[in-house]
């Protein structure tokens, strides 16, 4: 992830940044403490449902009794100490009964189930997995998507050619959608650099900013110029995609996604 403030591409979460991503990286970044024990959480779920869910809600987000996901006690307790005491003794003054019959293992299971609910809420690195089926659903009209495709895309793309099986390649509709709107890996840019002498050299761009241009030509030779001394013509592979960006309605993108998802 990008922490230097180069704003291209803008990976800006909250105050910019957000860890190296994924479940573990985001957890580390957020300082969420030890990861919950998934096996214990699974064992604890039915015990939680049987004993706690009626008041605290099925996913512990509260009901008649407080939300346990945003609970100060749960968020602070790393070793089941406070949670254990609370379950065993109850909180009679607040109307919470005691559960003296639950074993230490039961309490650990409930505690880890609650920690898992915290994890699934606070650790956005888990969202990709949790919501993968939601992100895989298409909602558009594939027929209208095909019409849009034929009117706008066939100059460069073909459903039977380069995009055959694209729906199988990107089973997550949300990813397919982002990919067709703006392909994120168009490959290295190609450019032609023309020096003041009129000499032109084409090649793969290694560096191109306000001050420097560097290419590797087809023979593998490296070339460098100060930016202000040459003309640079960059091949724009994404011109068609760029031209469509201001034209899309949300329905258009959903329809095209639904159509592309049928190409399997």
């Amino acid at each position, binding site marked *: 992830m990008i922490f*230097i403030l180069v704003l*291209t591409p803008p990976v800006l979460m909250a105050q910019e940044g957000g860890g190296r991503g994924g479940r573990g990286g985001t957890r580390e970044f957020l300082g969420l403490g030890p990861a919950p024990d998934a096996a214990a959480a699974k064992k604890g779920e039915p015990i939680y449902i049987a004993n706690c869910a009626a008041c605290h809600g099925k996913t512990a987000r509260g009901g008649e009794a407080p939300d346990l996901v945003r609970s100060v006690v749960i968020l602070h307790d790393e070793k089941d100490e406070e949670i254990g005491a609370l379950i065993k003794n109850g909180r009679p003054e607040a109307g919470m009964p005691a559960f003296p019959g639950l074993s230490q293992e039961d309490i650990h299971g409930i505690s880890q189930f609650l920690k898992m609910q915290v994890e699934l809420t*606070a650790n956005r690195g888990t969202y990709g997995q949790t919501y993968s089926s939601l992100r895989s659903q298409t909602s558009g009209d594939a027929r209208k998507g095909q019409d849009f495709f034929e009117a706008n895309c066939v100059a460069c793309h073909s459903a039977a050619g380069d995009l055959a099986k694209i729906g199988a390649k990107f089973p997550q509709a949300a990813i397919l*959608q982002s990919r067709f709107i703006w392909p994120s890996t168009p490959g290295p840019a190609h450019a032609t650099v023309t020096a003041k002498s009129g000499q032109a050299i084409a090649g793969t761009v290694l560096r*191109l900013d306000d001050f420097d241009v560097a290419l590797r030509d087809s023979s593998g030779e490296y070339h460098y110029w100060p930016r202000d001394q040459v003309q640079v013509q960059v091949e724009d592979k994404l011109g068609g995609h760029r031209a469509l960006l201001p034209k899309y309605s949300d329905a258009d993108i959903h329809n095209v996604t639904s159509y592309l998802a049928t190409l399997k």
Partner: protein
Amino acid sequence: MKTLFLIGTAVLTLAQGLDPKAFSLFKLPGGVWPTYNGDYSGRRFSDLDQINQSNVELLKIEWMYRIQGIGPQRGVGNPTIKSTPLLVNGVLYFTIPDHVFAIDAHTGERLWQYDSEDHGGHLVGQRGVGMYGNWLYFMSPDGWFVSLDSKNGKERWKKKVADEKLQYFTTIAPMVVKNHILIGVGGDAMDVRGYLESRDPETGELQWRWWSTPEKVGDQASDTWPNKSAMDHGGGMTWLPGTYDPELNLLYWGTGNANPVFAGQSRKGANLWTASIVALNPDTGKLAWWFQASPHDTHDWDNVETPVLFDAVIDGQPRKLLAQGARCGWFFVLDRTNGKNLVSAPFSGTGNWAKGVDAKGQPIPDPAKEPKENGSMIDMPAMGATNWPPPSYSPQTELFYLNGTEGYGIAYLYDTSDNPEGYGGGGGGNFDTKSALFALDIRTGKIKWKHEHTGAGGVSGGIMTTAGKLLFTGDSGQLVAFDPADGRILWHQRLSSSVSNGPSTWTLDGKQYIIVGAGDTLYAFTLAGKK
């Protein structure tokens, strides 16, 4: 006793370190950079002109200081200087998360270093220290408000001011106003409630706390929330230093996005005072007025970007103004005496997430452009058009400068339940994004000029303008001086990393310095041969 600078005829002396009277609205004395933004206005404009358009090509690295021996920081990688160093009595004070450094400004030699052990919180950034007398104030990421002796870096005391276990974290440079040390908090992951605190400079005890959301149903603005629970978990973080007008005795502060971040269904309404600019009395914390930049925010658009104060003549009338380039992609100009709006105009895209503006000039969010399960696209980057890096205003050009991003983005709703928690969704897709240095007309909000990047490279860090008719910021991995009038590049110097903080300037022994942080290294520039 050392004379530091003159304001009018009064001589402010610094036998006891930094007198809070050293901070003024628009005067940034040459020999000191006493607070995060230099002066109280947040303009980041310096009257110094020893370095100017006629000699800027002579600017050379005088010294550099590289942070050593700390290594990668938890979850964020190598140390990155995002703080603006304070310069007082020839000593620079700057920070990274968990660490404070004191450096001899003449030589770049380290005088002392304060280290705080990592006990949680987010190490995403650290904006610097505040100073009052001989005392420094520093926030460790895990919610400790620490006071140090500036002479030796020894800890005087520390106070717990935010609970990192609830996912609060603290990155702010404390701001000093009279005998108030103002500190704000960050935190998005667990739906906590934002607040701003004023604390005593000697004891660290709480003087007042202002909450970003109403306390209870029936209180002012509680009709912008459905219930108490939504207010209790509504967000509105206060993580960047504000600005202050001593004459009006008003503090201006930006507040962060509402929570849950992307899922707005359990917090129907405008959600005051999240994603707003608020004007507060610094002695009481009492709210004077507010302007909401992103009502009912569902895109993580913290509105903490510096509310910049300046005076200008509008339609023949001298006006006291406040301007902000907001993360929601709009530029706002307000009358800072009362919050009345003069300009509301998008600078990135067409502002198509809004249906227009209301009677107060606040954008009206379009429900059709809120995050959706199948994605909703807007014509600006989903995660915002700008962020914390400091903007600048030059009274010479009457232009407002900011580093921002253009392009298209898409936002998704994940948690569709009636009571979502946490982020509840996400911003995705950076479609055709490009960064740019914007120069905005304060009377119309129109873009006067723009230095735009396509492909590789990009602008970085904050901006400073000077009376030498120079604008300094990061560009293409270099420190660059632009002509603030038209965006021409006048000078550039390659650094070891991209510029990562807001550049600053001051004079020492008659010589003007430019100071900038790039990754783990602080650079000092002076005119070659002008000792």
